[in-house]
């Protein structure tokens, strides 16, 4: 189609409903993956702090798994759960866990030893120390991990179109690439990038609001 323009506005206008639905799907898949991934990572991190011998294997496993190409990971879960949302989420959650476990652990390790010692010496119980002292201090590092995990997941969701899911990936792959239709590719890609940037900025804002004390660190 040589006289076809790169972007056909009329197609966009005609398909606003479809585009909106895919965008919504993309957001939902991302949110599910990040929330479940965070819960699992948090539990794992607490476990590692309890049983220090777990630290090395957990970190090694997350390091190795992170290097597995995303496409291969999707292919790996297919035989078990088929072309389903579940397959997509299993793979997505795995990636977020790999990223978040490290950040939660690094965050908790960033609590200065004198601060922990003071907390123990002043009569905090172990759980009061975790919730009132260590987690709040770890928050900036944990949110940094959430930002990386969220941006990564938003990118990966498009890949799940290959197993019949995909959110904005459906526009890019199924309509765009398979049918040689550039407008859909542009719309999908631009929305995906905008979503990633928006999520990143929003999380950063939330972190700044939650940690007013970290701003004046220079003093």
């Amino acid at each position, binding site marked *: 189609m040589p006289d076809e323009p790169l972007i056909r506005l009329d197609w966009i206008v005609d398909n606003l409903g479809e585009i909106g639905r895919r965008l919504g799907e993309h957001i939902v898949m991302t949110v599910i993956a990040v929330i479940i991934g965070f819960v699992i990572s948090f539990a794992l991190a607490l476990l590692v702090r309890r049983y220090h011998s777990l630290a090395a294997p957990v970190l090694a496993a997350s390091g190795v798994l992170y290097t597995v190409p995303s496409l291969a990971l999707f292919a790996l879960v297919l035989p078990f759960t088929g072309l389903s949302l579940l397959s997509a989420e299993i793979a997505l959650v795995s990636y977020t866990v790999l990223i978040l476990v490290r950040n939660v652990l690094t965050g908790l390790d960033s609590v200065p030893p004198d601060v922990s010692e003071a907390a123990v010496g*002043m009569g905090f119980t172990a759980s009061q120390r975790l919730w009132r002292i260590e987690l709040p201090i770890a928050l900036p590092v944990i949110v940094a991990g959430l930002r990386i995990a969220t941006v990564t997941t938003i990118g990966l969701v498009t890949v799940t179109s290959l197993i019949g899911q995909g959110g904005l990936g459906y526009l890019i792959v199924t309509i765009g690439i398979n049918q040689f239709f550039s407008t859909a590719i542009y719309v999908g890609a631009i929305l995906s990038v905008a979503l990633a940037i928006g999520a990143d900025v929003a999380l950063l804002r939330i972190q700044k609001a939650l940690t007013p004390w970290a701003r004046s660190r220079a003093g």
Partner: protein
Amino acid sequence: MVAFDHVTKRYSGSGEPAVSELTFTIPAGEICVLVGPSGSGKTTTMKMVNRLIEPTSGRVTIDGTDVMSLPAVDLRRRIGYVIQQVGLFPHLTVAENVAVVPRLLRWKEQRIRDRVDELLDLVGLDPATYRRRYPAELSGGERQRVGVVRAMAADPAVMLMDEPFGAVDPIRRDRLQNEFLRLQAKVRKTIVFVTHDVDEAIKMADRIAILQKGGILAQYDTPDAILAQPASEFVERFVGADRGLKRLSLGRVQDVPLIEPVIVHAGEPRGTARRRLEERGEIDYALLVDERRRPLGWIDRRDLAGDGPVDPAAATPGAPTLGPESTLRDALSAMLSSSVQLGVVVDERDAVIGLVSVDRIGEVLRAPVTAAPVS
């Protein structure tokens, strides 16, 4: 009252005990300084009071109650704890940091707020200014002060202080020490204070426990008694060859009868100033002060010759100023290194209250040894 009764701490895997058969009693309201070289178990000893470390054998008691018989968390909330790195919680404001233990003890909010303001006032941090600051916005000295009042928040009878002034520079350390002694005179806590610095021990202590390697108590006595009569060669070496001079650290400027200065103000007629100086005879210098009686410098008798107003430009600046709680050692040192060998003693507002001279300090030293406070 805190008592150690045959307390031994042995870490698994090491033959030498860290603390051996310690027995001594700290009377209520006194500062007991644990001092000794590294490896002498002073911090271990302190931490056995709030069970951060638990004794292998023997008993630590507070007012007769074995600390091991109380839940560790309850015990710790009743004991103030200050560490060298302060350990302020970076995500909490100054007020929230100070309120930590009262909150753990579930005090009412209004009571907590009043207590926080009272404590900040006590160490000269204006509550309106400092309440909402974060630790990162404080200077080192301010952080140290907040750390100290945080430990006092729930009004514990016993406080543990692990090298609390170790991380600040010598000038600020001296000021913090003086401030703390002034505070302690009001609150009268029973304090276990750890340091490796003999001079700090001599300055802060009502009693010093000198520990040697393996946590063996080498001597437990008042600073003056230890300096006058070291119990062993180890103690003698540890306190240093200059222990005679160190006794100077025990005397305070306030123990010396002060000399009334001849005060002059800028612009006042030289004639009247000169007459006042001549009437006194004893000293050759008049002290120039500002309108709030803060010292500006010395005016030589010769610069008061003739008529006309007193010229502030003729003043020799650099008069060393001392607080009433400055040690005689610091006073002497400041005077010896200044051009005019008189020390100017000022109050908290830097207003002049009197002068000390080398002669006056000498008189105090020649007098018979004053007995250190025994309760």
